[in-house]
Each structure stands twice: as C-alpha cells, then as structure tokens.
C-alpha cells in the first residue's frame, strides 16, 4: 500500500509544475547584531541559507544633527559634526568648516592647511585600521582586529597630544585649527610612521596568503562600474572598480595640489579589491604625511574670529574625500550667525542602498563580507 501510494503520488501529474516549496522566511539581522556595524537592520527574506531579498532599514541612529546645526552658531556646529562620523571626525569637521569658509570667503593660513591635511590623513589611517579590524572580525578572524587596534591607539595618541581628545576632536575650526602643533608632534608622527609602515605588510600577510580569505572575498560582492555610477558609489569602493576617482585629485582642496600621491585602483570591484585598495591607501597616506612633515611652513594656525560672527546670505556645496568616500556639505546661510540649513551628503548613506541589490542570492557569510567591505558607518547614514 505504501509503495503504491508513493508511486501514485510520484507518477500522477503534479498540480503546480513541481515548484520547489522551500518556505521563505524573514530574518531580522540587526539592529543589535555583532556584524551590522552599529545599528543597521536588515530585513532578509531567506531561502534556507540564501538571501532572496534584503531591505536595509536605517534610522536607528538618526540623531537630528541637521536640525541641531540650525540652532547653533557657526562655530558651535563643529562639535556636532564630530559625531557625524565618529571614525573620522576630522574629515567631517573639515568639510563643514570648508563650507563655512567658502560662504564667508575666508582663507586659512597655509600652516593651518597643512595641519588639516596631516590630521585628515592621520584620521584616514585610524579609520582604515578600524575598518581592517572590523572587517576581519566579520569574516571570522579575531586576531587582526587586535593588531589593528594596537596600532590605531598610537594614532589616537598623536591626536590626543594635538587636541586632547581620542575620538571626537573638534579640532579643525573655522579659519584654522584648534591648537597649533609643535615640532615634537611632527617628530612623533614620523616616529610612528617609521614604526608602522613596516607593519602594513604584516597586516596583509595575515590575510593575503590565506586561501580561506581568498575564497571568501574574491568574486564576492562584485559591483560593476555602471552600478557604481547609478548608485553614486565613491571613495575606495569606486576605486576598487578601476576608476581613479578621488576628490583630493579631481577637486583638490587645501594643499593636496602640492602633494605627490598615487590613487590606488583595482579592477575586480569585489570584496578583495576593496580590501586591497584600502591597504594601499594606507601607504599613500603615510607618503602624504611624510611630505607634509617636510613642507609644513611656520606661521599662524588660524584666523582671529568673533565667536558669533555672521556669514553672508547664500548657499554652497563643498565636498572632500573622507576615508569612506565623497563626503559633502551643503550649507545655506540666511545672513545670521547660525546656518539656515546644513545638509551632509555622506558616502555610507549611498553605499547602504547597494545592499538591496548586492545581497540578492548570496549566502549568509557573504552578507558579512560584503557589508563590511563597504566600510559603512551608521551615524553618517542616519545623521
């Protein structure tokens, strides 16, 4: 009877063409999940281990930074921008300050420009090290995380000696910087670089020659160039697609015109390429820092400005290169001492949109590798 039943069931024509009835189920990844970089939530539709559909949900860290900027004087906004992207406070300070300076038509003294470049590049190193650590953590390697943090602490020491803070600096000010740096700082910086540059190959050696790492990253999460354009991908992520696009080169701000550096690119545009680009950028930052050490002029480090100075009416948009990509600030002033509207165009906001497309059809472990490889930071997305 049993066999007959099965036989009948098998041979009789099925009613729906034998579609696979794997039940799709919804899986919440985040807001509290070890590898969603803070409070990103992804609502995943899963078919077993495979993602069918992904809906990134942001806003869990929406702290109304743009609203707060409207109620503070131009100077008071700077600490708020610190919190815009806490991994690279310097760049978010910088982009805002640049926007104000452009509207108010101020030109900082050359020494301040150099200090800004030094701080931005140091912060790029800190941010990339942070990225390297968390990226490794997410693909399951714990130890590189600790190595990168060990060296990141040394960068933070430098910041601390310059402005007294480890993470949120409030250092780049309108018309200059918060405090001057001295020769000792610069010497310590070079000392750090001498120590640290030989370590970069060690970071790479931990991963590069590891077949597990290759298998997990090569060919995973490929973003074709057209897709990059349509989504507005920028920074290391677009450079991994083979385009040497860098605001420092294309639209040079500060003294980047005078500095020699390469724009590292890779062709494949997969997770591995993005990793390679960032590792090579570390070296370029070191190169820039060494040039700054040679070239930094003496002189004043800022302009004397009134605390409640007024900015003429107008609107402007400036953008610079943050470690994550193209960060911009759209600033509108109504002629008072407070911004009328301050909007930040942030790279993470752009990159998170990619996930919906990229995560279709990948396995769960690839979600981690892909998400981590874009170096998203949630406060920047949510603002």
């Amino acid at each position, binding site marked *: 009877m049993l066999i007959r039943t099965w036989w009948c069931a098998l041979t009789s024509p099925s009613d729906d063409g034998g579609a696979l009835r794997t039940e799709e189920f919804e899986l919440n990844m985040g807001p509290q999940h070890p590898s969603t970089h803070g409070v990103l939530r992804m609502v995943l539709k899963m078919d077993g281990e495979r993602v069918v559909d992904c809906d990134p949900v*942001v*806003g869990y860290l*929406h702290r*109304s930074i*743009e*609203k707060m900027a*409207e*109620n*503070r004087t131009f100077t008071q906004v700077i600490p708020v921008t610190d919190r815009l992207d806490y991994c690279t406070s310097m760049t978010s300070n910088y982009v805002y300050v640049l926007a104000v300076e452009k509207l108010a038509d101020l030109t900082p003294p050359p020494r301040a420009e150099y200090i800004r470049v030094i701080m931005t590049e140091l912060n790029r190193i800190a941010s990339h090290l942070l990225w390297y650590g968390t990226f490794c953590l997410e693909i399951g390697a714990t130890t590189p995380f600790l190595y990168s943090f060990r060296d990141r602490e040394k960068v933070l020491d430098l910041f601390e000696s310059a402005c007294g803070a480890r993470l949120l600096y409030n250092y780049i000010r309108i018309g200059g910087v918060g405090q001057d740096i001295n020769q000792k700082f610069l010497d310590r910086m070079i000392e750090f670089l001498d120590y640290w540059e030989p370590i970069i190959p060690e970071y790479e050696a931990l991963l590069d020659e590891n077949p597990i790492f290759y298998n997990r990253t090569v060919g995973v999460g490929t973003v074709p160039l057209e897709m990059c*354009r*349509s*989504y*507005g991908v920028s920074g290391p992520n677009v450079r991994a697609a083979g*385009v040497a*696009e860098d605001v420092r080169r*294309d*639209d040079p701000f500060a003294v980047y015109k005078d500095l020699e550096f390469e724009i590292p690119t890779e062709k494949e545009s997969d997770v591995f390429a993005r990793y390679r680009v960032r590792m090579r950028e570390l070296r370029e930052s070191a190169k820039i820092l060494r040039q700054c050490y040679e070239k930094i002029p003496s002189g004043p480090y800022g302009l004397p400005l009134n605390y409640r100075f007024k900015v003429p*009416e*107008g*609107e*402007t*948009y400036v*953008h610079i290169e943050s470690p994550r990509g*193209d960060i*911009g600030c*759209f600033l*509108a002033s109504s002629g008072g001492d407070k911004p*009328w*509207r301050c*909007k930040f*165009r942030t790279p993470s*906001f*752009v990159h*998170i*949109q990619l996930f919906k497309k990229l995560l279709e059809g990948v396995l769960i472990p690839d979600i981690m590798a892909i998400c981590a490889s874009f170096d998203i930071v949630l406060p920047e997305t*949510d*603002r």
Partner: protein
Amino acid sequence: MTPQEFAKHLGANYPDHQFEIDPLNENCVLIPLQLVPQCFELLRDDDATQMDYFDFSTCVDHPPDRLDLVYSMYSTVYKHRIQLKVVLDRQNPCVPTVSHLWVNANWNEREMYDLFGVFFPGHKDLRRLMMPDDWEGHPLRKDYAHPNLVVRPD
C-alpha cells in the same frame, strides 16, 4: 561646463522656459517645476552634459510659503558638477520622482519625504526612512515642534 553654460544648454532644449542662475548660489540653476523629470533625463542622457552621478538632493525650508528642493549632480565624464533648484509650494510640496533615473535618488527622496513632507509621485517605495513609521510631522521643517525637543537656551 559652467552653470551659465548649463542654463544656456537647457534653454536651448526647452525654449518655452526660463533658466536662471540662483542668486543665492552661483553654481545652481533654477528649474521650473513642470520640467522636473524630463529635464533631468536630458541632463543625464545628453552627450554634452552626461550627468551620470547623482550626488544628493535636499530641501531648504523657507517659511511661510517657499520650500526649495536642491539637486546636486556630477558628470564623471566631463568632471563638472551642478546644483539644480526647484521651488515648491510649502503647503503642498509635490514633485515628480527622479529615482528611476538614478538609484541614489531613491533614498534621498525617501529622506525628504520623511523629514520635509515632500511628496514624490511615481516613487516606488515612498516610506519613512529615518523616523519610525508611526512618527507624526516632518522634523526638519522650521516650524516643527515636538515634546522631545528642548530648545537651547541661548
């Protein structure tokens, strides 16, 4: 291309309309509301402009009656960047979507819908982005009030 050239280029394509440089921002061209999707499509696809990269779009609230919508875009071919401004009615802000032209516009428009209450007909997925779904009001408007909002004593 400079903004002046942009304005001229657009004027050549749409002879019935006026294109001016925004008095507030020398890099910004004012666009009439009626032209919103077509004009953007032209900018993206025209060989002379090729604005293939959508930077961002945002709103500037000017109570009591004006709400400016600013688009910023860039051409990776010609390396020029331009802002475009559309002036909306603050009481009933409504502008056709451009999210089918650049994917990046998708979330930007959702954000504006969320924070400014601008409505984008034609947008596929117009939900709140930042605030919870049951949130009331549009926080970035100048006249927004909320019990949680403590005004800074200055």
